[in-house]
Structure formats: structure tokens, C-alpha cells
């Protein structure tokens, strides 16, 4: 094995095997914890914070009350016998309440794992990667919130002295990280899945908390480096689904040239509402209806004038 994978540790939310939408073939997608943006429509609120935390999964709660005495800081309350609620201000992330819960209603999200442990889980499906051209995808949250760990994972996937035993790697990123961090990673990455959420800097800032200057800049640098990229474009009602914005996005894709092998539209869907409810959270983003084929066809056609391949969902 090459240098230092054994010393890299990261916070992992989940490892999902047999994913088919995060790059070619069958993949194991490693979801890291922590995010660099704050998108208002976020579908994975459990991926936002950087460190392990307890999130109540209230739909599993049997209202037994056994968690209450376990909390040493008084962060946990049940509003007088109802479903559990955690005050983030008081919580010390001690996880005692999760240990006390027998119904998987108080669940620890995020597990500290070594890169080796993650890789050995990922490598279990090597036989499937070989036949399908699949491999490892590192996603999030935002994986680049943990750049050293990502580097260790990607390097590990490519560590085998026999090139036939190395697996395909993909990085699913929002683009908003220091270029120096990307440079540590990209040598070991075959494909970047890069989100382009909005082309207008101020709108980008309004909806994600950051403007897009760094993202677009990084995208250009990746292209210049010869990275293979797929652009991932969320289609969000009343946020970015204007012809002007998509035309700008498509032109940007064309500007990146041959680096862009295709573009995946990720239409907004209201499913996250259910997840937020399960977590006992409010989904603030105004619920809209999803998109059907008819609404997507003109968008697909628009992009097809600029990029070689467009899919819905990846």
C-alpha cells in the first residue's frame, strides 16, 4: 500500500453499495458528512454538519420516554410526552440518548472511520465494478469538506500495483473548495461530477449562501487539467429554471470543451419533505410539484445543442 491511508480518518454518513446514478456502472457511493454550501432546497439535511450528531427519526419513535434521563445536558425534550426534540444550543453530541433508544428513533449520523475501513467496504463489490465499469464515488454532504480524507480514499482506490485491479473513481462535488484541495485529490480521480446550480452569482449566493465565482473558476481549472467531467444541474422551480439561466449554463459547459462528457439534470422533487418530517424538521423550501417529461423535454433539447449527452437523474 502507498503512503498514509492508514492515518486518514473521516466522518462518513453512509456507504451505499450498488448505486447506479453516480457515475458509470455499479458503484459504491461514500457519503461524507459536512457541507460547504447551505442550499435552501437541501435534500440531505443529515449531511450538513461536519461531525457525528444525533438526529431524531421521529417516525420510529414509540414515545417510551427512555431517552430523556440519558441526556446529561437537558438538550433533549419531548414537549411534555411527545416526540423527541434536541436543542442544538444545549447538545454536547455525547450520543447517550442514541445509546438509550431501542427503537432506532434517535440515530447517530456520521461515523468516524479510517480510510482503510471505508476502502475495504468499497472493495467488497470489486467483482461488480469489473464487469460494469463501476467503482467508488465519493459524495456528501460535500466531500471536499474533508479533503485529506477524500485524497486518502481516492489514492487507496488506485493503489494496487496491478492497473487491472484499480477501480474507477468519481468525485461528486459542488465545486466550492480551495483549488489547492482539489489538486490533492484530482490525480486519483477519473470523473468529476460537478454541480452547477446557478450561473448568476447573486442568485447563487441567495440560494446557497455563497456566490459561484470559486465554483466556475475551479471548473475551468479542472477542464484545463484535462479532467473528465459531468455537470449536474439541479432543476429547481422558480430558482434556476429559466431559459436564460440554462442557456448560460449550457454555454459554460460548451466553454469547458471536451472535458464535459455529459450533463445530468436533477429535477427538483418534493420527496425531501417526507425526510424532513421524519427528522422532525421543518422543510422551509416552498413545496413545488415535480417535473414531468413534457416540462423537461425543452430543457433537455436546449442542453443537447451544447453538450454531447443529457440524462435525467444521471
Amino acid at each position, binding site marked *: 500500500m502507498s503512503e498514509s491511508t492508514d492515518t486518514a480518518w473521516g466522518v462518513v454518513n453512509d456507504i451505499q453499495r450498488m448505486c447506479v446514478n453516480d457515475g458509470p456502472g455499479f458503484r459504491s457511493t461514500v457519503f461524507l458528512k459536512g457541507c460547504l454550501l447551505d442550499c435552501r432546497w437541501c435534500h440531505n439535511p443529515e449531511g450538513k454538519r461536519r461531525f457525528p450528531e444525533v438526529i431524531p427519526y421521529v417516525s420510529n419513535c414509540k414515545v417510551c420516554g427512555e431517552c430523556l434521563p440519558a441526556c446529561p445536558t437537558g438538550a433533549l425534550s419531548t414537549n411534555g410526552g411527545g416526540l423527541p426534540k434536541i436543542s442544538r444550543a444545549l447538545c454536547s453530541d455525547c450520543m447517550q440518548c442514541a445509546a438509550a433508544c431501542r427503537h432506532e428513533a434517535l440515530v447517530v449520523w456520521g461515523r468516524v472511520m479510517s480510510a482503510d475501513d471505508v476502502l475495504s467496504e468499497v472493495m467488497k463489490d470489486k467483482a461488480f465494478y469489473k464487469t460494469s465499469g463501476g467503482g467508488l464515488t465519493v459524495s456528501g454532504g460535500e466531500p471536499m469538506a474533508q479533503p485529506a480524507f477524500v485524497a486518502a480514499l481516492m489514492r487507496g482506490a488506485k493503489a494496487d500495483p496491478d492497473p487491472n485491479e484499480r477501480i474507477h473513481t468519481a468525485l461528486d462535488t459542488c465545486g466550492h473548495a480551495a483549488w489547492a484541495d482539489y489538486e490533492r485529490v484530482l490525480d486519483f480521480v477519473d470523473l468529476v461530477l460537478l454541480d452547477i446550480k446557478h450561473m448568476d452569482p447573486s442568485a447563487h449566493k441567495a440560494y446557497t449562501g455563497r456566490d459561484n465565482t470559486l465554483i466556475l473558476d475551479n471548473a475551468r481549472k479542472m477542464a484545463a487539467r484535462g479532467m473528465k467531467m459531468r455537470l449536474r444541474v439541479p432543476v429547481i422551480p422558480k430558482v434556476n429554471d429559466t431559459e436564460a439561466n440554462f442557456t448560460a449554463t449550457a454555454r459554460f459547459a460548451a466553454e469547458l470543451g471536451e472535458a464535459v462528457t455529459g450533463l445530468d439534470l436533477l429535477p427538483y422533487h418534493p420527496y425531501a419533505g417526507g425526510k424532513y418530517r421524519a427528522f422532525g424538521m421543518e422543510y422551509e423550501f416552498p413545496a413545488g410539484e415535480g417535473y414531468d417529461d413534457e416540462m423537461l423535454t425543452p430543457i433537455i433539447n436546449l442542453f443537447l445543442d451544447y453538450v454531447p449527452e443529457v440524462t435525467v*437523474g444521471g
Partner: protein
Amino acid sequence: MAQAAKIQESIEDLEKKQEWWWIAEKKRSKRLDYLRKAVWKKGAIGGNYAPGVKVDLEIPVLFTQMYNWWKFDPPMLRRAKANAHILDNMTIFITDHAQLVGYVGTTPNTLLWRIDGASMVNEELYNEPGVMPEPEQASLKKVADLNAAWAGQTAVDKVARILDPEDAVKFLSGAIGWGAPTSAYGYSGKDYEFLFAQRNGFLDIIEKIDEAIEKAEDRTMGAPGPDILPLYERLQNWDAMKMILEASIRYANRYARLARIIAENYETDPTRKEELIRLAETCEHVPAHAPRSLQESLQYDHFVQVLARIEALEGAWPARPDYYHWPMYHKDVNVEKNITREEALDLVGEFMIRAYEVGGFGPRWAREGLQGITGTWVWTLGGVNKDGTDACNDLTVAFLQAARMVRVANPTFAFRWHPKVADDVMREVFECIRHGLGYPSIRNDPVLIQNAMHWHGHPLEEARTWVHQACMSPCPTTKHGVQPMRMASATANCAKMVEYALHNGYDFVVQMQMGPKTGDAAKFKDFEEFFAAWVKQMEWLTNTLVRTVNLGRYKDPEFFGRPFLSATYERAVESGLDAVSPVGERGNCWITGFTWVENADSLAAVKKLVFDDKKYTMAELLDALRTNWEGREDMRLDFVKAPKWGNDDDYVDDIMLRCLREVARHSREIQCPCGNTWPLLPENVSGNIHYSSIVGALPNGRRLGDALYDGGISPGPGLDKKGPTAVLKSCGKIDHVGDGRAFLLNQRLSPTQLAGEKGYQLWKAYIKTWADLGLDHVQFNMVSDETLRAAQRDPEKYQEVIVRVAGYSAHFVDISRKTQDNIIQRTIQGI
């Protein structure tokens, strides 16, 4: 007028909505549409027959009349005369638009009742008032008279009388085995090499029998001595075989005559008239002679199957239609161009429908174990030729296409996959799965050929002819390989192995001492002592079943007798022995392992929580199990959370392998009547439901009454937490050659993941990996809209259904109703 609206919709729209049944209607011919809709559903729905389905009383009456007349004849001859009497006198009919004929009942809605199988099955007729033909009172009287005549005289009665009484009681308790030790309810293979490859019509066989008789008579007329004495019995058998073949030819000619009568006197449509004349010519030619066209070839095969069923209630339908009918298909469609491919598809579709409408009366336990079907008609497609080259052909494709047009639940297909299968054939296989048929199942041909050689010593060329003897087990179709009697009663309720190891051999459900006393489990000092007890219970259980079945098989020529089956077996025609006699058969037995995986999961949970972590004592566990976990839900959940098979976790996977290897060792110690091995074959049909009230609480966290796992080596539902690839990895640790005869694996895949060209490529890669891992079987269930809707109605039962949208996954039952509806719509649109 929903129907009228559907006619307006385009096939593309219906595809989007996954309304495959409407697509089938649009694509099939008018003839197939009529025939498909004219079929009576014979399989039980839950445990009950569909309204209007009746038991056929004409056949048992005819049989009993003649059987009683010839009471002093030897078994095979007596049965040949009685069965010939049925064939000469039973009511026959021809379905409108049909091009193929042959039914096991005297009207389209009847179930065959073989009265000579088992009194306990005959008695069950009284519990099913709906199945009595009108007028009911007269039928009940008839049934009562028949039952009185046969009480204590059936094949099973005769076996039960000579069984060791202890074995008989334990066997009949219903706790450890399933089925009956007689070929009256057997699964007979067909000697397709003799009938089709060697092109023998019944007249050709009669000629061979005459030669054999002549040769034997030369000797019986010669110098006296002990060697000629067995020949007298065989001469009578040859007479019986000849008699039933002649009756079979007469039976076919009755159809020919009926077709001509209709054509010449009643039919006004000139096209149909022509068809009826062709049907008549077909039945005049087969089964007397070898077939000359596809229609004759299919008709010959169907006659053989129907005639075998009129002789005994067959539980299975071993067949390889794309292989044995290919020469005539090729000649008709490709070489001589006598018929178009569409006309051939019509015949193939009808051939499947004819099989679908065959049904026999089965007792309730059989109906519960085989819900929705009347037997396991698993037809084999694909595979290799005897020289190892790819055997797939355009008829393979035609069968796969016809299946999507007729959409019957029985027969189903199993596809012999091998590395040389062409892409266009794989696409057709995938289409069937994508259309939600649930079949074909995929079998790993190289592994199973090696397996057949390993366990039963079939030579390579013979092993390559294999077909599914029942649902899962490969069996050659050759002279010495073909198996005349697979008895379902070598079906073990395996969960009892670990249950008895825990309770010192005592069964708390049927409340008697069943297995040997292997010691008070509370006193076991370590896991090894517990495992040793399990091994002893496993040995006892398999021994008991195999002893019973072996005896049933050995005595079957005397207690039952199969003249027709014998007449279609090359080795029986040659020897003059009943085909069921073990003489001349190589042996191809297996023990069907119902409820198998519960053993590994239970042993692992005990090892982890009692012996490794010491969280509970064995005494506490036994107490919890005997009170069905009552008041100990926390403890039960701990046992549910213990390591489970199917998660690529060596802790439990190693225990699974140990268990399998103990059985594999024992499989060589127990022998079939041919002297060959008895390997294990884990699979469940729907026995997991039947046994839910018979298997007590188990350390895997299961309560008495909970359904058992759905089968074979599939993990428990919802207990495979790491997805389908981890399941394949666990299963890949099993040696699919040396550890057992075959291993059933159910997998549920999401249609969203496998939609479109990308979906097909992923599925193909998946199959390639499955093969690389050395598994022998897999069948896919693409989660259908129906399932998702059922999940909405009954979320508790569908916890494991996962839906994934790009970037986000959820358990289906966890999301809102509206969102669920949206996903149901979306599943069809996936890219």
C-alpha cells in the same frame, strides 16, 4: 369502458405505465387472445380453488370400474387396462380456435383426481364442497362410493403399512416433511432423447417391444433354469406397455375423428375448417409416428405430458422445448417455409396455454405450499448442446416472446445461462423480467453441469442435456440419467433441525419427541456442543425422510405401477421393468431444503449472544423460545439484530458454510435406491407460509406464526441491510458444486435502476458478476407498481422496498402518500 379506452392507447404509453398485460393483449393474435381468455385458472388462490372449477369424476369412475374387474392381474398390466379404458371412453372436446389438443379433464373446468394415490387426499374432497360437480348431492354420493372402494387401498396406504411405525407417525405429523412417498404424486422426467432426439413414435416403440418380447420368448421356450424365471413378469410388463401405447394412439385418433366431424358437419368458416382438418391429420400422425412439422412436434410432446398425467398426478413438468422442438421449427419456419414466424409464435403460445390449463386436485397443504399454481411447470430454455456449443436458437427467442404475449403463471421458464449466450437472446430474457413476469430464472450452466457430474456421476455429454426435474434440480433427459420419480416427500422442513437441537429433540408444536435426545441445551458449555447437537438432528431428520422415500420408490412398481411412463423410457422398454424400478437409473436424488437459512441465522445468534457476548444464558433463551418471546420484546430485538446471513459478514456466513458442509458430508452417507447420493437443495416454493404455524419460536428472533424466510439461500426479508451486491457476495462463499445440488436465490431489483438501455447493460454486468461469483441460480423480482400499491395498503409487510431517486434514497413506506403516488408514476420513466 376502461377496456375501450385501453384500445386507444399506444403501446408506448402502456409501456410507460408498465401495463404489460394490456400490451400483451395488443400484441398477440386473435387466436391467442381467445385461447388465453378461455382458460380456467386451476391454481389455488391462497388455499382455495377459483369458483366454477370442479373435480373430474368421470376419470376415477372409469378407472375404478376396469381396475376392479382385473383384480388378479399384476400391477402394471392391471393399471394399463384400467387407464386404456379411460382413454377409450373419457369425454373429449376441442376448444374453439385451438390447434393443439389434449386435456387431463373431461371438460375445460375440471381438475384431475387420481383416486389411487392416497386415501387422506381423497377424504379431503369432502372439505371442498365448491369443487363438486352439479348436482352436488349426486356427486357426493359418487365420491363416497369411490372413497369406500379405495379406502386403505391407495399407494400411500400401502407404503404406510410397511413403514416402521415410528417413522410413519413422525412423517405423517407434517412437522418435518412435505409430500407423499409414491409416484402417484411424483415428478417424472421424460426420456426426451428416446422420444425426440431418436425420433421414436409410439409405433416405433411398439416395434421395439415386439422385438424384446420375441427375444424373451425365445429364452422362455428354451432350456429351463433360474435365469429365465424373471422374464415371465417382464413379458406381462411389455404387454402392459404395448397395450397403453396402442390405447394412446386410439385416444389421439378420437381427437382426429372429432375434428373431422366438426369440420365436415358443423364448421362454416373455411379457414377454421382447414385448421380442423390439419388438426385431424396431426392427431392421426402423432403420437403414432415421429413428428414432421412444428405442430406435430408440439402436439406429440403435449400428448406425452397429458398421457403421463392421466396415469399419475404429476407435480412437475420437466421440459426443454426450444431444444427438442428446434429441428421441426427450423424445418417449418426457416428451411421449407411452411409457416411464418408469426404462425409459429401462435403455436408456441398455445403450447404454453395448453400446459397452463392442466390441473389436478391437491390437498390443502399442497395448495398452501404452491400458492397460485397447480404444480411446478418449470421449462428449461437455453443452455448448451452435447458438444458444449451454444444451444440457443430462434425458438428460444420465440418462447420468450410468446411468454410475454400469453403471460401465464405456469409454465414458467428457467434459462440456462452460459458465457456464449448471444446478446439478442439475453435481451429477450431481460424483457421477460422487465415485464414483471418474474421469470425466467437464471441458471449457471457450467456450474450445474459440473454439479451434476460431481454429485451423481453423470457423464459430461449427458449432464449437458439437463432440464429442471421440478423447480430447481437439474436432471439429464438420457436413457440412464432420466429420473422417473422424484418424490416431493424428500422435502425437509429444515428449521426443525435447530429447533430440535435447542429442545433436546422434543417438538413443542406437535408435542412429541421427534428427534434424538441430544442433551439439555441449557447445559451446553460452548457453541461446539450446540453445533454437534444440530448435526445429530440434521442427520436424524434427513435419514427419516430418505428412508421413507427410498422405500416408497422401491415398492412403487408393486404399489402403483406406471405402464405409460415405462413405455416412453428407453431403459424400461429394453428391460421390461417398470420405469420406476431403480435398475438402470444412475440416480439423481436431492433433498429439498425448505426453511434452511433459519439454521445459520439462529446458530449465529446463539453463538453471538449466548456464548461470545454472554448477554443471555441458554436457559433464558430456551425459556423465551418456549413462551414465544412473550414479555421479552427487548431480548427478541437483540436476537433480531444479531448477525444475519446475506450481509457479506463472515461471522454468520462461516456458520452457513459449516452447516452446508455437514450436510454435504452426510449426503454421501445416505444413498438412494440406485446407490447414489442425496445432496441438499435449499428452496422454499411457498412452504415458508405453510410452515409458519408449525415451526416454533427461533433464536433468529422469529416468533411462532411469523412467516419463514422466502427461501433457498435468500436472506430473511429486510435482514439484508447491505443491498443486493452483499447478498451475492455472501452467496458466492458457498461452493455451488460441492456444497449441495442447487441453491435458490430470490432478488428484488428496482425497475427505476434497470430502465432503458443503461438498465439492460447494468443487468447484464450484474449477471456476469453473479456468474463470476459461481452462483447457480438467481431470480429477479422487479418491484412492480402493484407491489408498491400493496405496500401502500399494508406498509408493515413491505418494509424492505427501497426507492431511489438521483441523489436520494428512501424506504418507500417512510414517505408520504402523495410522494408514493409520484414515485409509482416515476418508476416507469427512469432513464
